[in-house]
């Protein structure tokens, strides 16, 4: 089963919940798809075992063959290739690596090289397999890296916990593809609730099963609960705001370690999700 832990608003506790879920399960693949700001390792403390460069294809123009006809620059949807009278310029960071320019070139003058967009890292902590992407600084495109990180998830893994990026734009959608369930971590504050609604809208649109973990309960009000009750959306778990937990987080200590009794709650949560998943599957 693949569970994506999401939040809409940053700082709602996505990583805390995802890491705790993996630790409580004991055996899991934890995948950090928040490639712009990957933080999972700062709580999970895995032992890094390997690292690989993630690349995207990049056009390489053979100016011996090029006759500067501009077919490539007219076809490119991302304005990543510009044809001057006697020169072709490729803008690396605008290039999506889609291959259109090389396909359309009548002179077959465009081949492909690669460019680095980030790193894929792998490791483990006991029986938890760790996978993460780290986007290069200055690189605008997170989704291709997310796709490559996800391609490394072992197929036979019984439990995969994916830590999603904040927001509801394309990096989040790329993260969600192929998930069985989305666990949304939300705060019942005006900002937190507003951003939760954006995630909810997307998940309903995608028709993906989801449920909610309320975090920092007590700091906000009851608007989240009322809403979930009215919409019959499952509130799966509630974590109160706790100053000791916040301090532990600031020391890089995950929730289930500062409060071992939470493990049980996370395990129950997992059991609920697995039962529901099996029911859907049958």
């Amino acid at each position, binding site marked *: 089963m693949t569970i994506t832990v999401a939040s*809409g*608003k*940053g*700082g*709602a506790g996505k*990583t805390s919940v995802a890491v705790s879920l993996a630790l409580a399960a004991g055996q899991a693949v934890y995948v950090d798809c*928040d490639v*712009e*700001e990957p*933080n999972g390792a*700062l*709580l999970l403390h895995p032992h890094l075992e390997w690292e690989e460069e993630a690349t995207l*294809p990049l056009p390489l123009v053979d100016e011996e063959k090029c006759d500067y006809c501009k077919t490539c620059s007219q*076809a490119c*949807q*991302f304005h990543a290739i510009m044809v001057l009278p006697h020169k072709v310029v490729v803008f690396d960071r605008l290039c*999506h*690596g*889609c*291959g*259109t320019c090389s*396909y*359309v070139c009548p002179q077959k003058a465009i081949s492909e090289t690669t460019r680095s967009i980030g790193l894929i890292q792998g490791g483990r902590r006991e029986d938890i397999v760790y996978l993460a992407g780290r*986007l290069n*600084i*200055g*690189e*605008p*495109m*997170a989704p291709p890296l997310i796709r490559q990180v996800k391609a490394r998830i072992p197929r036979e893994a019984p439990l995969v916990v994916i830590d999603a*990026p*904040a*927001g*509801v*734009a*394309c*990096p*989040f*959608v790329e993260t969600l*593809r192929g998930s069985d369930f989305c666990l949304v971590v939300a705060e019942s*504050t*005006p*900002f937190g609730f*507003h*951003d939760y609604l*954006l*995630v909810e*809208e*997307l998940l309903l*649109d*995608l028709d993906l099963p989801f449920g909610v973990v309320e975090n920092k309960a007590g*700091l*906000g*009000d009851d608007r989240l609960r009322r809403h979930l009750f009215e919409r019959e959306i499952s509130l799966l778990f509630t974590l109160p705001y706790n100053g000791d937990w*916040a*301090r532990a*987080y*600031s*020391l*890089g200590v995950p929730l289930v370690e500062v409060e071992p009794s939470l493990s049980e709650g996370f395990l129950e949560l997992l059991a609920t999700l697995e039962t529901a998943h099996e029911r859907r599957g049958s």
Partner: protein
Amino acid sequence: MNKGFREILVISGKGGTGKTTLASSFALLPPEKVVVDADVDAPDLHIILKPQVLEAQRFMGGRVAGIDPDKCDGCGLCRELCRYDAITPHYRVDPLACDGCALCYFACPREAITLKEKEAGMWFLSRSRGGPMTHARLYPGEENSGKLVTVIRNRAKELAQEEGLELILIDGPPGIGCPVISAMTGVDQVLVVTEPTPSGHHDLERVVELAWGFQARVQVCINQWDINPQRTEEIERWCGDRGVEVIGRIPFSPEVPRLQAQSKAPVEEEGPGAETIIEIWKNLLEVE
């Protein structure tokens, strides 16, 4: 500055460090300015600033492919070429997977593929409690958030010129990816709001490095500094060693969500929090 106005971006790398809480406070403090909510994907500034929309525009994002089933003969070329797995075995396009690259459109021997402009969001010009404001909403799951950020920043610049305002305040998106790059391009100053946690520090380093690439003046403030004073000092040392100015520490306050629930920014209620924020704003406005 010959462009006639100064652009200040508030950013954080890590989400939830208090970016919008701080930006909404700055928006309510003098001088008059144009405010931009560049977190187009999950905007929250409007909750505090209550903008009255004067002008609403559709945002056309990228394109998306569509296959005409009457023309398609199922030859499979598009599926084979598509690098985004966007074409299903039954020759339908998954609009969320489609990158709009047009390769299938050019390749299809039956000319069965069309490209359609996709409405990817809305953007607004408003009057808010913090002055004229541009903001937007990218539809969930959409691409091109960077392009949308550029659209609302450009409108804000026009507005600043039209109204003779010398300051544009931008509330940025989290992360370091495409919308952040669009929010940062060409700004004069970047304020990074961080928190004394491992992830706060880690993300600060990445966003500061990004900002250096843009030649903007980079300043830092530490929110909820008292949650971990030791790490606050570590962050300050890290900044000090690299010549990044730290212009303030804000204490943790459980009052912030309560004020937020009343659509108020922390500077709207007297207290130590408000004073610190005013001090940070003054520091930010000081010219180098």
